[in-house]
Each structure stands twice: as C-alpha cells, then as structure tokens.
C-alpha cells in the first residue's frame, strides 16, 4: 500500500461504488485490469457480503485470473458508512481492496492487515484521520 492507493473520507452512495472507487486506485497503479474491479463487485453479488470480515471493515477481492498484474492493496475510508448487507459487521467504514497473484505471496501483507484490524485503537485512528501519511504510518507501525 502506498500514498497513491489510499483515499480518505471518500463519498460513496452504496457498497458497489465503494468497491469501484477502491478498485479504480488499483487500476491507476497498473496493478489490475478494469475487469478485476467488475469481478470484485460480481463476487459480492454471487457469494454475498462475506467480504465484510470484521465490524466496519470490508475486504473486496477476486481471483487472480480476473486481471491481476501484480500484488497490491488500496484503502478507502468512507465519509458516511455504507451497508453491504452483512448483519453482523455492517455498516462499513473502511474498505481495503486486495489484488493477489496467488494464494500465498500476499500472506505477509495479510498477517500485517490482520494485526491492524484487531487493534481497535489503530482502526479508530485510521477512521478519523484526514492525513494519508498518518494512515501509512499506522499500517507500517
């Protein structure tokens, strides 16, 4: 994750727009093709909102063969939380779109992410800050 793939206080109308905006950052970074963004949206439509893996947090992703060029992540915090339809963990305030090339190379990144997610102090700081640098520092700390 870099400065270029983080956007804070983003306005979105619904979950699909949130995924598309997060996915767009990955397209701009040349990490994925546009069809990957469509695949992330399709995954929620087909499999349900299971990508909302923790309270207030969604991790859209799709399979590598749907146009992933390199491993990458993007992060959005939303100005107003949106519902994904997950009764346990809605509404969603933080969206991290994941592009993985296989099932293992991103495992370290996921480990860091899992640690970050279980740190409620850091998560609330990420949700409230308006400084991209601060988010990066929290992730890397």
């Amino acid at each position, binding site marked *: 994750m870099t400065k270029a793939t983080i956007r804070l206080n983003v306005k979105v109308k619904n979950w699909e727009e949130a995924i598309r905006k997060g996915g767009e950052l990955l397209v701009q970074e040349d990490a994925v093709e546009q069809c990957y963004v469509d695949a992330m949206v399709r*995954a929620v439509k087909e*499999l349900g909102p299971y990508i909302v893996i923790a309270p207030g947090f969604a*991790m859209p992703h799709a399979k590598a063969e749907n146009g992933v060029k390199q491993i990458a992540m993007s992060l959005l915090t939303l100005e107003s939380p949106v519902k994904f339809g997950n009764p346990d963990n809605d509404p969603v305030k933080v969206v991290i779109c*994941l592009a993985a090339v296989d099932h293992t190379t991103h495992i370290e990144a996921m*480990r860091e992410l*899992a640690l970050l997610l279980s740190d409620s102090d850091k998560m609330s700081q990420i949700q409230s800050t308006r400084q991209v640098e601060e988010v990066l520092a929290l992730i890397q700390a």
Partner: protein
Amino acid sequence: MNIVTVCGMGMGSSLVLKMNIDDILKRKGIKADVEACDLGSLVGKVADIVVTTYELKLQVEDKGYNVVYVRSVIDKKALEELILDAVGKLKK
C-alpha cells in the same frame, strides 16, 4: 488433525482465519495442519474441522463437514473459544 478454513476465494478471510488459528493452536501446544481454501475446492478435502463465516453457511452446511462458524475473522477471543471447543469435542 486437519483444519480447513474456507472463504469465497481462498485468500482473504480464510487466510486471516488460518493465521489466527495457527497462532491459537501454537499457543495452546496443539498440533494441527491448517489449510485455507476456496469454496470450490472444499469438496473432497479431508477435514476434522472446517472453519468459515456465517455469511457462507448456506454454501458449506450441506457438505457433510464438522463446521465452526465465526462472525468476525479477527475476533481472536471468540475464535479461540470456538476452536478449542471444537478440538475438545473431537478428542472425546
């Protein structure tokens, strides 16, 4: 003991679940192989316990596995209780 964690793609929540379960079992000194997989690859896997989220209950419950469902993949405390309970039942 074989534990399989499942999610839609086999690389998001199932991977986080696998890492958290690995940590829990290591801390408790319990030996197990924990593997993350996607829904499509689950059928045919040998698993003493399958772990997934409630969101995927419909897709998993009719496959004949001993399934543990979680609400949040990062709630380690709840996960630990569920896993240790399931492991304990296996040993009986």
